[in-house]
């Protein structure tokens, strides 16, 4: 309910409405399909808007809201434990000490187990990347980046092709 120039000034100040998400991105998998009883790697490749940061998965201070990937269990797909990148130590006007944050590109990886009973077909994997963004003088409410991926299960006789090697070649999972 703020009009015209006020909106522009405020958005310029606080960056944006949350409808234009501070964090955008998608989920990818390391092969074009998966076999029953195998393990795959998935990753959420996200981008934090310029001027903003989100908190490290292990925040420097206990009151900060951590970045967290939460994938829904969706049999026969069984997500593992997420592996987060190391944050960057940054000093902000509102902090006396540097805090560890994510800025720019962010890749959160996770292993994915495909149950041995999985029948060939397409299965949806869904979840959210939970985050809370701030810039140097204001914070936005905690938000979620919804992510989803259609995962194709094929018979063991079918050959798989690697995909998104640019993401997975350097990704280390726990």
């Amino acid at each position: 309910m703020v009009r015209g120039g006020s909106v522009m000034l405020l958005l310029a100040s606080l960056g944006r409405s949350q409808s234009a998400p501070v964090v955008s991105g998608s989920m990818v998998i390391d092969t074009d399909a998966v076999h029953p009883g195998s393990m795959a790697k998935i990753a959420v490749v996200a981008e934090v808007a310029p001027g903003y940061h989100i908190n490290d998965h292990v925040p420097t201070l206990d009151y900060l809201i951590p970045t967290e990937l939460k994938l829904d269990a969706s049999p026969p797909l069984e997500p593992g434990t997420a592996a987060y990148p190391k944050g960057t130590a940054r000093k902000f006007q509102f902090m006396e000490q540097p805090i560890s944050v994510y800025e720019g590109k962010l890749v959160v990886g996770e292993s994915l187990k495909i149950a041995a009973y999985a029948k060939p077909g397409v299965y949806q994997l869904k979840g959210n990347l939970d985050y809370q963004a701030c810039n140097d003088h204001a914070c936005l409410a905690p938000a979620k980046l919804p992510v989803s991926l259609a995962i194709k299960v094929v018979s063991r006789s079918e050959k798989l092709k690697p995909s998104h090697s640019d993401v997975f070649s350097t990704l280390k999972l726990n």
Partner: protein
Amino acid sequence: MTQRIKIVLGAVLAVVLGVGLYFLNARWIAPATVHRVKAAGKHPAAPDFSLTDINGAKLALADYRGKVVLLDFWATWCGPCRIEIPEFVQMQQKYRDQGFAVLGVAMQDTPDSVSKFYQQFRLNYPVAMGNSQLAALYGGIFGLPTSFLIGRDGHIYSQHSGTTGPDVFEEEVRQLLAGKPGEEVTGFSPAGQVEEIEVGTPGEANADVPGVDVSKLTTAQLAAFEKQLDANPCTCGGCKFTLLQCRRQDATCPVSKKLAREMLQKFQDSKTIAATAPKT
């Protein structure tokens, strides 16, 4: 003669530098934090609210009529908010006897975290848990901290979004304290930029379609209107929400608010309303 020229040139340079710095500050530095103030005579009335503070006491804005109020929307997880709190504690201590009060509204937080913070930082003013309806009443809260300065007449004189220096608050508070209860402070001079403030109405502060007054719709009409909103995308750029999702998940989005209001107007004018209206 040469010395004179040097002095004149130096003076000209100083003036140019001063003007340059002024414009640099006005255009690039000052807007880093937004301060919004209504033009004299048009200060909107601060929307009334009644909450229960974290100590269990009633916190109603009406009880502060006649006082100057700094209404602070904040959160314990918000670093820029936390840095302002000790300043508010000091201001409360300094100006309380002159009729000044700080009221805190914690947004998207937990009572436990707020209570712990309250004790740890020895807050000397009431703090209550906020909600989306209250945020909508105050024009939607784009980010935290967001503070409103309310005069003794119960009207909002300024809004500060983002970390704001105590000098700005103090300058404005002193001016408002000089006002008389029930009277507008006509000579109010903002410490920040002069901008317009617009608050919401109780009808717009609803959970069905936040920011859009659907109070005149029947239950069936509301369901039909929500269906329409849910069938249209929000064109804010990149959110992938429908208009209904956008209103509910981000009440601060001006794009979906405008579109939803336009759609409501059309809806009310359309045959849909006639078809779903109760027969009299």
